[in-house]
């Protein structure tokens, strides 16, 4: 066990430094944020301003407003001595060696020996950074290169020097991994490290090829986006997102620091249109627009820039590749005749062979490079995973045919793939020509690993049950978007006796980016269109039955959501004994958005939670009003921390910062509940009845008046209010959980038959956005 990090200091309150500080605070750890003094009347103005700005930024750097309170703003002149109370100092000041040297000299005088010091530099070699520093300083020093925005980008590149103490590295890594949720990739001390080096070349290749081939930005992005599995924005869209002005900085630093014979030197060129755009402030979404923009003078018309003339014109829909080439078949894509294939090959041929040339120069193995590109640039597949799709031998043949250099690693691979599965283990091809197991860090458990080595205990069209060891079974959703349907509910019914017989506990989890998008609306719409009302009602009743069976099962059930858990995906969590959530949890009961109300037990579960919260006022209305407010507005949490505020999570539910550790943490939580486990007793409710219903409707009406709700919103929220207030129950009646389920079902069935609900469902399926009818 390494020394824990209890307090962190970040120096430099720019976008990166402030964002890093916010993520430390998100982990619940206090952080000192320092910057220079610019305003003598408020010496902490820069750091304070950074925190204030972050509280207004969307997507939010903070997971809760409480986290902001953990940042202590200060300045370098008055507060530097406070670094003695910190266990890790992160330097994130401007990329100038003289300034960093000056700061490190000052830090050397005030820091406690053994305090880790790292630089967030993206361009300066480690050896240069520690010039003139003591041996003790060098022992504690490393580079920790975060990606923007630090809360959301999971990659952390770590570079160590020959003098760096492994214990210091272990301390920083343990914190960055477990508390900050980062996946660590070890990079060598070479220019641009891994992700930016490959990423910059990739972007440059894509720009060059687009200009050379005379493509439009739409055409280019239709090829380089979704079909390649890189961010679906494509290259031009991506540059608008990250800022076009970043490009010349990266280009300059790489051309200055990379060897003259590096492949990047040959393709780096400045593009006049981009220079002009930067000069005019058209630097992307943070500026006046970039390659794409919404024209404010033409009613926010979507426009794209003409790469030849530099003039904006209306955005056009580009057709892009078709057939297998559009669906991830990279061989088909690069083999496509004409511009599509030429453009794809122009990018992929150069990028993939460059990646292969960087081992062992910049990274130890293919896994490091693939992780870096997936987690630092949001590529769906890493370069070597893409090479496996094409076939290393195919790639070599084409490079040779074009007289291009072929990296040794590609020759070494020959007909072999970079990844294979052997004896239930995923392996990668090493530089020694042999395959090695991919070793997960201790405490990391992925369902994909378990699936390679075993068969499911149960499987249906949209769910499966797995043995994840130690007497714990895992229920996995497997449908598109992990949507929920009758098959899931049926499998839950089958799983319960099986888990009861052969296991100690159940975890509801999947490896997906999103836990569940909720009920399968496509299926529901089909049923609605053929007026199969009894089928719909069966689905509602079946879901209620399955979820309540989970709730009252004689073993602990732990939900382990990450990403979106919406509608029915939220309701299953409400029925678990406990939750272990990934910190990035976006959960809510969003049924009203499609003209429905929660129908799988969510209404009663939410009332019970709010009612039982110790801080709630007494009486029949406060809990009901809170649930009404949250559900009628389809409120979705923006983090697990916020999900606690909204009561979708209970106060003692766990939060895991590192996505890869979620299943292991959930498993541990489930096992901790096993001893002496007793299923909960069914709740009884005292609800306000018609009076409360009238009160909620009045609140909704004032929303309507203010223009915040539509006519049909009134109908839907009236239905919700009816359920939440207990229907015709009187204040003195006791309403059972079964009564609540019946109210839910009846109200759901009334709404689902309404053409306005059907219109909402259709619109959601077509556009992914709610219809405001």
């Amino acid at each position, binding site marked *: 066990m390494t020394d824990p990090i209890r307090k962190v200091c970040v120096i430099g309150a720019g976008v990166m430094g402030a964002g890093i500080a916010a993520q430390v605070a998100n982990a619940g750890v206090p952080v000192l944020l320092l910057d220079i003094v610019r305003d003598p009347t408020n010496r902490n103005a820069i750091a304070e301003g950074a925190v204030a700005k972050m509280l207004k930024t969307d997507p939010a750097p903070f997971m809760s407003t409480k986290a902001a309170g953990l940042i202590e703003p200060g300045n370098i002149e008055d507060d530097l001595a406070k670094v003695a109370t910190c266990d890790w100092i992160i330097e994130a000041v401007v990329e100038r060696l003289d300034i960093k040297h000056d700061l490190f000299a000052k830090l050397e005088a005030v820091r406690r020996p053994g305090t880790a010091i790292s630089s967030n530099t993206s361009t300066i070699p480690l050896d240069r950074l520690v010039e003139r520093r003591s041996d003790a300083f060098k022992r504690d020093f490393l580079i920790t290169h975060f990606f923007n925005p630090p809360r959301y980008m999971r990659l952390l590149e770590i570079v160590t020097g020959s003098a760096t103490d492994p214990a210091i590295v272990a301390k920083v890594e343990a914190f960055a991994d477990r508390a900050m949720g980062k996946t660590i990739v070890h990079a060598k001390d070479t220019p641009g490290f891994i992700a930016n080096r490959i990423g910059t070349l990739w972007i440059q290749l894509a720009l060059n090829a687009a200009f050379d081939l005379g493509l439009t930005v739409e055409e280019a992005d239709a090829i380089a986006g979704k079909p390649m599995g890189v961010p679906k924005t494509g290259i031009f869209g991506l540059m608008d997102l990250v800022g076009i002005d970043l490009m010349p900085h990266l280009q300059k630093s790489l051309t200055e620091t990379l060897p003259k014979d590096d492949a990047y030197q040959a393709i780096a060129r400045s593009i006049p249109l981009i220079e002009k755009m930067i000069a005019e402030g058209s630097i992307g979404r943070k500026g006046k627009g970039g390659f794409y923009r919404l024209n404010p003078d033409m009613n926010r018309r979507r426009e794209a820039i003409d790469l030849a003339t530099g003039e904006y014109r209306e955005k056009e829909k580009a057709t892009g590749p078709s057939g297998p080439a559009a669906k991830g078949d990279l061989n088909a894509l690069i083999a496509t005749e004409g511009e599509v294939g030429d453009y794809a090959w122009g990018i992929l041929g150069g990028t993939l062979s460059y990646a292969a040339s960087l081992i062992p120069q910049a990274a130890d193995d293919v896994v490091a490079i693939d992780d870096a590109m997936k987690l630092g640039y949001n590529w769906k597949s890493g370069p070597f995973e893409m090479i496996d799709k094409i076939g290393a031998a195919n790639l070599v043949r084409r490079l040779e045919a074009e007289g291009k250099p072929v990296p040794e690693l590609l020759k070494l691979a020959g007909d072999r793939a970079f990844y294979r599965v052997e004896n239930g283990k995923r392996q990668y091809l090493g530089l020694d020509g042999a395959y090695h197991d991919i070793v997960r860090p201790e405490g990391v458990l992925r369902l994909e690993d378990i699936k390679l080595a075993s068969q499911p205990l149960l499987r249906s069209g949209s769910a499966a049950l797995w043995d994840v060891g130690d007497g714990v079974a895992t229920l996995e959703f497997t449908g598109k978007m992990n949507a929920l349907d009758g098959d899931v509910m049926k499998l839950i019914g089958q799983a319960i006796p099986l888990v009861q017989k052969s296991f100690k506990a159940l975890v509801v989890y999947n490896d997906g980016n999103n836990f569940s998008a909720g009920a399968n609306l496509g299926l529901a719409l089909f049923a609605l269109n053929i007026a199969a009302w009894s089928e719909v009602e069966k689905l509602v009743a079946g879901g209620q039955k399955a979820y309540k069976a989970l709730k009252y099962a004689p073993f602990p059930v732990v939900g382990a959501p990450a990403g979106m858990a919406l509608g029915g995906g939220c309701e299953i969590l409400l029925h678990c004994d406990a939750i272990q959530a990934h910190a990035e949890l976006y959960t809510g009961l969003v049924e009203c958005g499609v003209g429905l109300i929660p129908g799988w037990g969510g209404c009663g579960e939410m009332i019970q939670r709010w009612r039982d919260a110790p801080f709630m006022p007494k009486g029949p209305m406060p809990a009901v009003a809170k649930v009404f407010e949250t559900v009628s507005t389809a409120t979705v949490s923006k983090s697990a921390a916020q999900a606690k505020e909204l009561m979708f999570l209970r106060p003692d539910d766990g939060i895991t910062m590192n996505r890869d550790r979620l299943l292991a943490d959930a498993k541990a939580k489930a096992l901790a509940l096993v001893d002496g486990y007793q299923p909960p007793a069914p709740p009884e409710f005292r609800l306000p009845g018609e009076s409360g219903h009238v009160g909620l409707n*009045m609140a909704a009406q*004032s929303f309507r008046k203010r223009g915040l709700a539509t006519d049909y919103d009134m109908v839907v929220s009236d239905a919700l209010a009816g359920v939440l207030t207990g229907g015709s129950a009187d204040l003195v009646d006791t309403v059972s959980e079964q009564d609540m389920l019946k109210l839910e079902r009846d109200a759901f069935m009334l709404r689902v038959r309404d053409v306005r609900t059907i219109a909402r469902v259709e619109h959601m399926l077509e556009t992914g956005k709610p219809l405001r009818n």
Partner: protein
Amino acid sequence: MRNTVITGYARSPFHFATKGELARVRPDDLAAQVIRGLIERTGVDAGDIEDIILGCAFPEGEQGLNVARLIGLLADLPLSVGGMTVNRFCGSSMSAIHIAMGQIQLGAGEVFVCAGVESMSRVPMMGYNPLPNPALAAKSAAYMGMGETAENVATKYQITRTEQEAFALESQHKAAAARDGGKLADEIVPIQTKKGLVSEDGTIRADTTTEGLAALKPAFDAQGSVTAGTASPLTDGASAVLVTSEDYAREHGLHILARIKSVGIAGCAPEIMGIGPVGASTKALERAGISVGDLNVVELNEAFASQALACMRDLGLKPDTVNIDGGAIAIGHPLGATGARIVGKAASLLKRDGGKYALATQCIGGGQGIATVLEAAE
């Protein structure tokens, strides 16, 4: 008939609910400090106080139970002093004064503390458990939100948004000038909070501009004219006046601010509750045997600029007599505390500026008005 006089007025500083400096002060503590301050400033013998009559619009939670009694105990008043909580929403603490006057007439006491309190931070408007009667909700606007009633008044009386904003701007400027001129300091009892002593209002926005007001979005109706700038803010505050028989005041050398000449209550349609002061004031003026032209000082509660303007127009009030030191749009409107504030303020202004007659009047949710006519007691 025995005369009833106002012999003291004090209030806490007023602060925005939730974000203001009184948000963490319990309403019972707040009122107790104000009452202590009133007793010290007037020099009345606390043993002579018959009763504390305290108004509160949402008497629940920390301002629940019979909070008037609890406040008396918190303020360390003699155990012989009684306590009664009254609720007439915004008119609560003006009603407390009317009740005291009645008691004095009855011969049921000589000295009364008439107070009001509302922590809109700590007890929500509508209370924790709003449970409207469905039958009444269906047939009347009894439960209509106050913002909507202000819109209704604006429409019915054709008060434009520009007029409302000009009125609000003036209220802010008058209040700021009064504060800067030290004219509010005498009435304010500094309040001890966990963070220190709070001795100034936190609600006044001296930097309000015409442009700033014009840029605000409608607060209650997307198509409406009432904004947060032309409505009184949610406020925390407490107020108290000392009400005694004139005989007692003279016997004990109390400083008489004004004599209560007459009072009035009148109901009106709930959906235009803001017009309530018209009926109530008309009655009270008639009972006093005077006309609007006789008034030197008017305290007309500014729940909303639209209703205040409509009432001024309907009653024919002279603008330069109305809310001389600013009104609730600037100073704030802690519901239960406002009635005692405006009666105390009107009495103080009569004394300060030397007029003959004053009127204090306000509208009340649910459709009522309440009014008090004061006369100078030479």
